[in-house]
C-alpha cells in the first residue's frame, strides 16, 4: 500500500477534503460531501425523518450519525413543517441546518415555513438573522415510486423571492454543488435527482480548486456542439447527453448545457451557448405550463433574438398529476420526444 493511499484513507476518516479522482455513485458523493461539511463546520447539523440511525431512506446520511454523533445528525418526528420551522430557529441560534424532506411531494406540508419564513427571515430581520439553510429534497421521477414521490418543484421554489435552487446531474456535480450550497449564508433548495442516486461517475475532488472549470456557480457545458443547445438539469442532463450521441449519428452536433442553478439562472451561459448554436430546446420533467422552461425560453429569446433560427422549443412533462409507475415513461421526456423537439427546431421555417 502506497503512502498516497494511506493518506487518502486518513483524510476520509476525518472527513477532510480529498484529492484526485474516484468513481462514486451520487449517493456516495453526497454522503462524502455531507461528511466533510460536518467535519469542517461545527455549526452544521443534519436532521429529518430517518436521517439519523437509518441513514435516510436513500442512505444519503448513512454512517454520519455514528461518526459525528447524535447532536450533529438526528431524527425528527414525522412532520415536515416541524422540520423546516425548526430549521429557522436553529439558524437564528447560529447553526447551519441541513434538513432533509424525505420526498419532493412532502415539501408541500412545509411550504408555509419554506416560503413565508425561511425565504423571508433575512429580509424581515433586515439581514440580522440570515437563513443559511440547505434543504435537501430527493426530487423528480423515474423510480416507479408511489404518489407524491416523483414531483418536480423547481419552478415553485424558483418563484419565491429569497430562495436559491440547485440540482446536480451527476456524482461530481453532486459532491461539489452540495459542498458549495451547504456553506452559503442563504437558503438553498438542493434538488437531488433520485433516479441518479445509484449511477456511478468520476468525482474529481481537486476540481474545486481549479479556476474556471471547477466553479460551483452558474451553468456548465457538459458537451460542446455547433447546431443546437439542449438545456436541462437534474436527471434530464444524462438523457440529453444520450440524445446528443444519437443525434451525432445523423450529423447533428448538439451542445448540452447543464443549468445546475435554477435560481439564480446563469443567463450569460445560456446566451453564450445559444448565440453560438442559434437553436435551443429546454427539457424538464415538470409540467409544461409555467414550468421553468418558460423562464429559460424567455432568457434565451431576450439574449439571442437577433440570431435565433427558431423559437425555443420545450420538451417537458405534461400538465397532469404525476402518473403511476406504469405510465411514468410516457410522462417523463424520453429520447424520442427530445429528438422530435430537436427536429421541430431544426426544420423550423420563418413565415
Amino acid at each position, binding site marked *: 500500500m502506497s503512502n498516497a493511499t494511506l493518506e487518502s484513507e486518513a483524510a476520509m476518516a476525518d472527513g477532510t477534503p480529498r484529492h484526485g479522482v474516484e468513481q462514486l455513485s451520487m449517493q456516495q458523493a453526497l454522503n462524502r460531501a455531507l461528511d466533510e461539511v460536518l467535519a469542517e463546520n461545527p455549526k452544521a447539523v443534519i436532521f429529518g425523518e430517518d436521517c439519523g440511525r437509518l441513514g435516510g431512506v436513500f442512505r444519503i446520511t448513512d454512517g454520519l450519525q455514528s461518526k459525528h454523533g447524535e447532536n450533529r445528525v438526528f431524527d425528527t418526528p414525522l412532520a415536515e413543517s416541524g422540520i423546516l420551522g425548526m*430549521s429557522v430557529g436553529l439558524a*437564528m*441560534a*447560529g447553526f447551519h441546518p441541513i434538513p432533509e424532506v424525505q420526498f419532493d411531494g412532502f415539501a408541500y406540508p412545509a411550504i408555509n415555513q419554506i416560503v*413565508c419564513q425561511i425565504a423571508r427571515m433575512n*429580509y424581515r430581520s*433586515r439581514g440580522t438573522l440570515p437563513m443559511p439553510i440547505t434543504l435537501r429534497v430527493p426530487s423528480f421521477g423515474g423510480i416507479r415510486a408511489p404518489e407524491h414521490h416523483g414531483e418536480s418543484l423547481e419552478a415553485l421554489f424558483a418563484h419565491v423571492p*429569497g430562495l436559491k435552487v440547485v440540482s446536480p446531474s451527476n456524482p461530481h456535480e453532486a459532491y461539489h454543488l452540495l459542498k458549495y450550497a451547504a456553506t452559503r449564508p442563504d437558503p438553498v433548495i438542493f434538488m437531488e435527482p433520485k433516479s441518479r442516486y445509484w449511477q456511478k461517475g468520476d468525482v474529481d475532488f481537486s476540481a474545486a480548486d481549479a479556476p474556471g472549470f471547477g466553479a460551483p456557480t452558474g451553468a456548465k457545458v457538459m458537451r460542446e456542439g455547433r447546431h443546437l443547445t439542449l438545456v436541462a438539469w437534474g436527471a434530464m442532463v444524462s438523457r440529453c447527453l444520450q440524445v446528443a450521441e444519437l443525434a451525432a449519428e445523423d450529423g447533428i452536433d448538439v451542445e448540452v448545457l447543464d443549468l445546475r442553478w435554477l435560481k439564480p439562472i446563469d443567463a450569460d451561459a445560456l446566451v453564450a451557448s445559444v448565440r453560438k448554436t442559434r437553436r435551443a430546446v429546454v427539457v424538464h420533467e415538470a409540467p409544461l405550463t409555467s414550468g421553468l422552461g418558460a423562464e429559460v425560453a424567455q432568457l434565451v429569446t431576450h439574449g439571442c433574438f437577433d440570431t435565433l433560427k427558431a423559437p425555443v422549443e420545450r420538451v417537458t412533462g405534461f400538465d397532469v398529476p404525476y402518473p403511476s409507475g406504469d405510465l411514468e415513461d410516457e410522462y417523463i421526456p424520453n429520447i424520442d420526444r427530445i429528438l422530435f423537439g430537436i427536429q421541430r427546431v431544426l426544420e423550423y421555417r420563418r413565415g
Partner: protein
Amino acid sequence: MDTLPLPDDGNAAPPPTPDQLRELYTLMAAVRHLDVSAVAWQRQGIIPGYAPELGQEAAQVGSGYAVDVSRDFVFPTYREMGVARAMGVDMVAYMSTHKATWHGGLYDPAASRLAPIQAVVAGSVLHAVGWAHGQTLEQNDGVALAYLGDGASSQGDVHEAMNFAAVMKAPVVFFVQNNGWAISVPTERQVAGGSVAARAAGYGIPGLQVDGNDVVAVLEATRRAMAHCRSGNGPVVVEAMTYRRGPHSTSDDPGRYRSLDEERSGAGEDPLRRLRQRLLDGGIADDAFFAAAQAAAEAEEASIREGIEALGPRPGTEMFDLVFQETTPALHHQAASWREESEHV
C-alpha cells in the same frame, strides 16, 4: 387550574419585591397609554394600522418581565407590544412596523432578543423549538418564550411544535394568551375542550392555566415555567386567561360580533386597576406614585410618537439589498432598472 402542575423542584422564584411591583405597574401604565394612543394615531393618520392589546397588559408585561435578555429569546406575534416594552426594546423601532416602515420592525432582533414581528398566526412557534434545541446542543441554559393565541392554537404547527419540543425536551415556554377572540370567533368555537393548557397533558409536559389579568400570577407562572425549562426538564405550556378588550385591529368592528354587555362581562376587572388596588392595599404605592407613572407614560408616548412621525420611508434599495446575504445577478439587474425607471425614494 393547573392541568399538569410543575413538579415542586425548588425552582419557584421568590414573589416580586415592592420595587418590582412598582416597576410592573409603571410598565403596564406605559403600555396601556401607548396602546390607547396608537389607536388614536391611526385615527389621526399617523400610522396606517395597529393591533391593540388593550386588556392584555398583565399577560404581556408579566411574562415579558420574566425574560433574561442575556440568555433567553422571545418569539412574538404581531400583538406583543407589551412584551417588547417589558423587555426594553426600542419602542420607536418596534412601532415602526405599524407605521408600515418595515414588516419585521426596525429593532435589531439578535441584540434585543426579540424575533422580528411575525404576521403568520402560529408562524414562529416552531422557530422557538429550533432555537431552543440549539441551546440544548450547545449546552446553554437559554429558554425560548413563544407567544401564541387561542386562535393560533388551531394551527397544525402548534401541535408539531409542542410534540417536537416534548420529544426533544427543548427548553420552550409556549405562552398562550387566551384572549377570548380570534378576530370575530370566540374561544368556545375555536378551542375544543376549552383549554389549550389541557393539551399539554397529551404531550406529557406541564400545562399551567393562570389568571392572565393578574400580573403577579403571570410573572410567577412564567418564572416557574422558565426555571423548569432551564433545568433541562423540557417544555411547558402556560395559558394566560385574558380578554381582548379592543378590536382585533384598527380595521375591525367588534360591534358586528359581540355586544357591549358581552364585552363588559367577558373582560372582567381591568388588569391595570387590579394592580393599582393591590399596591394601594399593600401600602406599596400611593396616589403620587400613580400620578407619576401616568405622567411618565404620557411623556414616553409623546417621545415615541415624535420618533414615529419623524420616520421616513426606508431607502428603496433595501428592497433589493436585504433579500439575500449574497445577492443575485437578476436582483442586481432589477435594482438597476428600478433606479433608472422609477420616481424612487
